[in-house]
């Protein structure tokens, strides 16, 4: 099992900043925030914008493996996550703190993410010309 503490923490944002940073702070299913944030990301990408995603707080649960449809058949957000690559959204950052506090390792997640420490999260915000928080 690869835990994030085994991985080298990225202390500066190695990946080239994108045109638009979408920050996802809410977990799936409980509210519509995650879905609507991902919708903006997918639409912006379809419009030719290069989009980076940053998962903070409970937002990292969006990446958890094994999600299903919810109450009364409510669609989850995992199909949107699975579509990211098709839309050329492959820049996925996550707060290292958020992952560690929730005991999440790379094996728990649907997609690979680059864990960022606090300094790198701030850099991520600073380098992007546009940012939207959901």
């Amino acid at each position, binding site marked *: 099992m690869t835990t994030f503490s085994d991985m080298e923490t990225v202390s500066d944002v190695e990946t080239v900043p994108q045109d638009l940073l979408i920050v996802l702070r809410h977990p799936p299913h*409980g*509210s519509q925030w995650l879905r609507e944030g991902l919708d903006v990301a997918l639409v912006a990408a379809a419009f030719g914008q290069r989009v980076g995603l940053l998962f903070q707080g409970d937002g990292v649960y969006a990446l958890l493996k094994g999600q299903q449809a*919810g*109450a*009364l*058949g*409510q*669609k989850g957000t995992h199909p949107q996550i699975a579509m990211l690559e098709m839309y050329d959204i492959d820049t996925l950052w996550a707060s290292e703190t958020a992952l560690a506090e929730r005991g999440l390792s790379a094996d728990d997640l649907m997609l690979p993410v680059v864990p960022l420490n606090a300094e790198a999260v701030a850099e991520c915000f600073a380098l992007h010309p546009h940012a939207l928080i959901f």
Partner: protein
Amino acid sequence: MPMLTYALLLHAAPYSHQAALSALRFAETVVAGGHRLKTVFFYHDGVHNASALMSPPQDEVHLADGWKRLHEAHGAELLVCVAAGLRRGVLDTSEASRHGLAVHSVEPPFELTGVGQLVDAMLANDRLITFAP
């Protein structure tokens, strides 16, 4: 278990928070479990669940229709707080004409009522279960 009467209080807006779905799912479980669902009271942003205009995608649950079915099959009364509803644009034909509006958004079996009916529902039923965002 002897039959109990239930009232539900729903505060959550539809299609924004799971609580709107949780309430409907619980309501269906109540009647399937042999109990009587007497009253559903829609308050706060929960009043939007009574909108006759909601048009969700076909592969998503239609919340207002879900409540209507519970009314038709089990007689649950669907009470919408009039004070919370009016300011949010959730009103029936009679309130619409009283406010000079040509359009309305609430149709039977949803009924506009006062908060007093919530107090009544709490006192008159064996259980009151709240779902909030």
